[in-house]
């Protein structure tokens, strides 16, 4: 058993330097709900663990028509945040079904994103809200669109030494809905998850976002479905075509929890349910 170095920096610059120094040997510890099981099951053997909980990254504020969420904000804090509930109800919906009270109390939103699981429950809601991420590294910071962040399961565009510091969520209009199917009603990894946001002018859709979780190697924006919706009258037929188009963009896998066949069937059903709910259709 080799020794692991543990760091708990209080300055962002120190954190990014440590991450840069240890490179692939570094593991970022925030809430630990993903990392600790990986350590316990010997799936990961880091040289250094860098705890980022002392960097004061836990906050939610409204700033210039957007929500600014510190990456270290816990899921429980987000669920209790009036700003989140008022402006970003779909995120609260997703979090309320994520893990347990104990997990939500320690897990952070930045961790849920950076872990880059295709099943991360906070990501589809963030995608439909056009969220951006602020990444900080030894050479400064940059802002990227969340939809460009993931490159594969567990893989992101984060450079060596970089971590997520903030999530920016524009205050957008439109009805939203989050739907998830799992093996049980709580504390269950999604077999398929769907988030939608739809802006309507009467019966006509003026703008839409559709995002899927657990349906592809990364969480996914379904632009083909979104394009079908824009400028069209929303009815049952269009909803069905959108669902078809959205799953056509996916690459689900067979795993212990479900087959690709099931994910496509359930994904379509969830998209239809979510679109109907977000648009206020009684379908």
């Amino acid at each position, binding site marked *: 058993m080799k020794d692991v170095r543990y760091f708990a920096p209080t300055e962002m610059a120190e954190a990014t330097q440590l991450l840069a120094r240890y490179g692939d040997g570094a593991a970022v510890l925030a809430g630990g709900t993903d990392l600790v099981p990986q350590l316990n099951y010997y799936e990961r053997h880091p040289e250094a663990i860098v705890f980022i909980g002392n960097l004061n990254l836990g906050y939610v504020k409204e700033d210039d028509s957007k929500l600014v969420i510190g990456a270290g904000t816990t899921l429980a804090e987000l669920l209790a945040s009036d700003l989140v509930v008022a402006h970003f109800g779909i995120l609260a919906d997703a979090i309320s079904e994520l893990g347990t009270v104990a997990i939500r109390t320690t897990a952070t939103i930045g961790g849920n994103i950076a872990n880059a699981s295709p099943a991360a429950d906070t990501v589809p809601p963030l995608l439909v809200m056009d969220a951006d991420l602020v990444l900080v590294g030894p050479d400064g910071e940059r802002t990227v669109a969340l939809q460009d962040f993931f490159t594969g399961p567990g893989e992101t565009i984060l450079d060596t030494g970089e971590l997520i510091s903030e999530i920016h969520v524009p205050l957008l209009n439109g009805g939203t809905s989050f739907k998830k199917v799992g093996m049980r009603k709580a504390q269950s990894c999604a077999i398929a998850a769907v988030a939608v946001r739809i802006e309507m002018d009467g019966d006509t859709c003026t703008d839409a976002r559709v995002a899927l979780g657990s349906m592809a190697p990364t969480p996914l924006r379904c632009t083909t479905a979104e394009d079908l919706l824009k400028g069209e009258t929303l009815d049952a037929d269009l909803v069905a075509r959108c669902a078809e188009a959205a799953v056509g963009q996916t690459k689900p896998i067979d795993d212990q929890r479900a087959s690709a066949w099931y994910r496509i069937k*359930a994904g379509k059903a969830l998209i239809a349910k979510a679109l109907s709910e977000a648009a206020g259709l009684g379908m």
Partner: protein
Amino acid sequence: MTETVGRPWVRADARAKVTGQAKFPGDFGMADMVHAKILFADRPHARVVSIDTSEAAQVEGVVAIFTAQDVPVNEYGLQTADQPVLCGPGSGKPGADVVRFVGDQVALVVADTRAAAEQARGLMEITYEDLPVVSDPFEALKPGAPQIHPGREASELHPELSTEGNFICHHQIRKGDMEAGWAQADVVVEGQYHTPGQEHAYLQPEAGLAYIDDEGRVAVVVAGQWAWEDQRQIAHALDIPVEEIRVIYPAIGGAFGGREDMSVQIVLALAAYRLQRPVKITWTREESIRGHCKRHPMWFRCKWGATREGELVAAEVQVVADGGAYCYTTNKVLGNTTITCTGPYAFPNAKVDVDGVYTNNPPSGAMRGFGAPQGIFAAEMQMNKLAEALGMDPVALRMRNLLQDEMPTTTGTPLAGGVHLQEVTERCALAAGWERAEEGWRKPAAKGVALAGRPKEAMRTGMGMAVGFKNVGFSFGYQENCWLRIELRGEDDIERAIVTIGTADVGQGAHTVLQQMAAEALQVSMERVSLEASDTGTSPGSSGSASASRTTFMAGNAIREAAALALDGWREGERPAVVEHTYLAPETTPLDPDTGEGFPNFAYGYVAQVVEVVVDVETGELRVRRVVCADDVGKAINPEQVEGQIEGGVVQAMGWVTCENFIAQAGRVLTPHLSTYLIPTIADVPERMETIIVEKPDPRGPWGARGMGEMPFLPLAPALLAAVHDATGVWIDEFPLTPERVLRSLRDGGSLLECDWE
């Protein structure tokens, strides 16, 4: 005077458990203690060619490494000693060098710290020669299949154990005249069913501390269900007299049958005995899930016939059970399946064949219901399908055919202790909304449901029912017994009554109930009764296992008889008045090997359930809205605990049917964590649970009590599947009902269950 029986006394251990004061096996430590880790085989079938401990032994802090050659008698097993304590060469026991499932133990590494033991374990060099793996019982029975236990000998004690191929055991019933039965049948229903394995998922993973006590005995503090059996098996493997082994059960964090067989007991005792030092071990959850047995997966092929009036005339049932790598209690479990797989009905003609099969899967063993939930599932699926085929109400069909007093079962003898199947069925059906009209029983119409965000037409509701019964105790010819000692102290009045008994409280609340019964029998207050329990060092006699729904019945009768004797002594002036007594349950017989005739059990419990579900036909998700359970417990010694057992049993059964999915592929466990093996959470439990405690006394039960711990588990699966059929029109003949299985079955119009029956 006191009337302690029948009242909801707060559990004796409640405060200690709620406040965290209760000590479980993992909470014990001693000065000079060393820590052990077990090296598991982690491969399903292989010969251990050699073991090189040299590098591991170099790790700082390593005290000892034990392998097969260190085990004096390298075998153990509850029914037959077919499992090596440690697999590997050099023990002299033929076949002990073979690992037969991933949880087989190969070495015990003992060190000053857990970390050192773990590190050394990782440096053990084991050379294996992999053997062909068979993980499907149907494959295991084919000619040329890999043989798991070649060359085993017949058992005089258990003649049902087979020596042929991979057969563990065989039970059969031949009753009446099948040809004549089929000739009478106007309607015949055929079905194939599969029930999956199940992990016990008790709160407390296996742990223990072994040390040399002040009388020089090897004491093992551990969680188990039958201390004397643990003691016997440890002594056998260590080749020392049983008196030199002492087994102590502290607080036990659940068992459900999973602690019936050995886990850490023997290796801990071996290490403490050899080192003459305290040795501690604590399994991780992963080690627990890989290392202990599971519920038997079973496959059924059923053909049942009835007249058009709904009279059952013939049943043919064939069962194959995956026993996994070792026998454990397979022969006993399958005895229960044999008598329950035709349901609680009076069949004049029946043919039943039940086979247990060795494979390289984790061993199957005891789990709540002990073979009855599987048998009842197949039977009640058949019954509900028959009701549909006959156009009869499922309650009406049952009321016509349920066993009653003096009616012979398939074994040719009536159920003992009073038969109250009709009462529980009737009480349950009425509470669930059935109407008993003049023309017969009428099921309530399904009510629609609206869930937020879900289109109404996708959400289908349904209601289903099933009935179950199970024996109390192991029996089938085994003479059930329970030892205890009562000591009455005081002068004029009994100031203190000390009851010494071996019975384990595995979390079911047994000790509170025993205390209540002792207070009642002795006519003293609860505070004056103290219980000294679960220590072979203080109880020289065996009180039997805390399983098979037997504890209240057996210990209660032992208390009643011993209390009467102790009070006689007290009245004659004995101070203290001391009685040691063994209660013997009524005699039973094994089943005849050819016909299945016999009187296998002395007592039974009866239960009926109605389940309401909502099924989302677009995603396959389902929710259990309501469960009504009527359980004849004879007498509720502690009504609150009875209710707790019913609710717990229902939820555990619901987990088996819905979200629990134990996956082993080619003998390898793919669900070794509670993040992959999902048990129900509080969000999953039925929205409404209504328990009806029926009290039809068993004339031979203590205060009329029957066993009840397993009964609530029995009918839940078939009742739930009947509710899904009611909601969707589709019969699903296997589970767990993952959303995917539900959706596939809706697509295919049912299960496409295919087995290789011969």
